[in-house]
């Protein structure tokens, strides 16, 4: 199969969905002429024109807010907020409008709305351009949250999002845009709530998502050389998340390590740990471990940022401590 980048997988998914569904349009800062800050909308302006690929002013509140209104009036907006850290600027539109309309209006209004938003650290971009805030959105009933870690999932989850009938926070990771992987040329769907087992194993379960999946796989490789067999689960979507796959893996391995790039307190790892504690406590042979960023803002200094981020060494260390 051909290989393409994560960014290209996204633009290809968008183009295919837009050809099929005239209600889909794109709006965001620099999505048109330059094809997106990370080239995830490259080529779309040329194919679909400025009515359907809309470069907006710097206006996050109106980007998210107008999309709610357009979706309520029957369109299927796919908007881009340039950086996860900027979601605070349009939080009311997400928290109180998009997430609530369907329920609050008794099911009358469906919002077919996708908010694409990149996040992640490692670029020396400091405290306002690096945060992993996915847990925020999982805390809001009415939203769904996707977070692909491969080009294949990026396209498949995006195609699923673009035919879903709910508001979706579609998180992309900065570190992954240039990653290549096998991606079918035709359309396909990756379902919500179905994790991928990236590596099968019997001694420890490692659960992660986004960029950290790749760090988890690297750590699993290291431990394999020490004779330890790790099962690596990539959640792919956080809301809903695949509890079944995680719990049955824990029942098999009896050990769980959760890895996320977000800060520790109330990160999504806490939800997974609590659920496994409730549902599979009797299967555990060791305490559940979380490998996360510490509860600090993200620093600029490369020395400090490297110390902030989890990596294969810190993950491997946490795994060894359970054996």
């Amino acid at each position, binding site marked *: 199969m051909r290989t393409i980048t994560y960014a290209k997988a996204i633009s290809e998914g968008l183009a295919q969905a837009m050809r099929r569904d005239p209600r889909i349009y794109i709006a965001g800062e620099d999505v048109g002429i330059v094809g997106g800050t990370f080239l995830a909308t490259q080529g779309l302006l040329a194919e679909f024109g400025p009515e359907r690929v809309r470069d907006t*002013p710097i206006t996050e*509140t*109106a980007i998210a807010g*107008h999309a709610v*209104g357009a979706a309520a009036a029957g369109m299927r907006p796919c908007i881009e907020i340039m950086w996860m850290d900027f979601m605070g600027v349009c939080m009311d539109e997400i928290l109180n409008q998009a997430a609530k309309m369907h329920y609050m209006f*008794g099911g009358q209004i469906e919002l077919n709305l996708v908010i694409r938003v990149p996040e992640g650290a490692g670029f020396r971009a400091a405290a306002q351009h690096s945060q992993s805030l996915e847990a925020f959105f999982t805390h809001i009933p009415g939203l769904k949250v996707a977070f692909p870690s491969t080009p294949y999932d990026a396209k498949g989850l995006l195609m699923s999002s673009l035919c879903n009938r*709910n508001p979706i926070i579609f998180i992309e990771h900065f570190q992954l845009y240039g990653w290549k992987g096998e991606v079918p040329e035709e359309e396909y769907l990756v379902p919500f709530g179905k994790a991928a087992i990236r590596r099968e194993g019997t001694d420890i379960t490692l659960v992660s998502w986004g960029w950290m999946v790749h760090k988890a796989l690297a750590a699993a490789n290291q431990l394999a050389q020490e004779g330890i067999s790790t099962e690596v689960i990539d959640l792919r979507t956080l809301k809903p998340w695949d509890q079944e796959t995680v719990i049955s893996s824990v029942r098999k391995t009896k050990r769980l390590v959760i890895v996320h790039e977000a800060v520790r307190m109330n990160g999504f790892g806490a939800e997974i740990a609590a659920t496994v504690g409730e549902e599979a406590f009797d299967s555990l042979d060791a305490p559940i471990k979380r490998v996360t960023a510490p509860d600090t803002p993200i620093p600029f200094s490369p020395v400090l940022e490297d110390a902030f981020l989890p990596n294969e060494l810190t993950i491997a260390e946490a795994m060894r401590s359970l054996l």
Partner: protein
Amino acid sequence: MELDRDLLLGLYSTMVKIRTFEMEAAELFASSLIPGFVHLYAGEEAIATGVCAHLSASDYIASTHRGHGHLIAKGGNLNRMMAELFAKRTGYCKGKGGSMHIADVSIGILGANGIVGASLPIATGAGLACKLKGEGAISVCFFGDGASNRGTFHESLNLASAWELPVVYVCENNYYAISSCQRVAMAIQDIAERATGYGIPGVSVDGNDVLAVFEAAGEAVKRARTGNGASLLVANTWRHRGHFEGEPELYRDQEEHKLWLAKDPIPRFEAQLIERGIATTEDLRAIDRNWQDEVRQAVLFAEESPDPAPDELYQDVYAE
């Protein structure tokens, strides 16, 4: 302006319909039959009435916490509205929204809203949807003087003007945002001046004069329908009641309050209709009685409707 009799009587009728509903809601709230918060539109009826007279079911409106008048003027069903106030399963939102969240998407009502200023981007997006669909529909945004100080106002009017969207922004200036007085909350007197900053027309009218609102809204709606973009219409008015029912209201000057009550849009329009020989007092009383009956009917409907079952809590979180 020469307007035909049906239209004039229609304007009167809609205003009375709203007032009757609101005064009934006030009583029901006072007797603890309606839970939660209720913000009444009494005194401001001329605005929703004069604006919505230009709209049809395919046009959109986005409304506010003080939304009953907008919904009724846009064609909302009194039974389902009242049932929603009563938190009943037969209400517009199956009892999950209440006064601040009534919507009827089938006739373009994209909802009342509990967040001040939230209607602005929503109406803007509905305007984009109208433009992209190209079927001649438009979008109208209602919001208060208080909301006009929020960032959503700026971002929405800027986007709508940059993208030439068919949106009419209707600012209902009742001079107060709870206790915050418009004259203190901003350094300009005429909110319509703000339109200049977006390169769109901005007009202020007497919001207690239904014909003045009707005429000014007609211009703005025509502009939107003919592809000439957005406008700002400011209608100056006064709420007859407290900010919400039961609010002690310690901040408005009683003399000013009395002056405004004397400018009540309904008796004012009634006097015009009679003076111009459009209708007799009996004609108008017949209209009044009709709405009293309809509202009483709505209350009966609401009272007799079932509460939601407890497990409906879990329904409609997601569309499946």
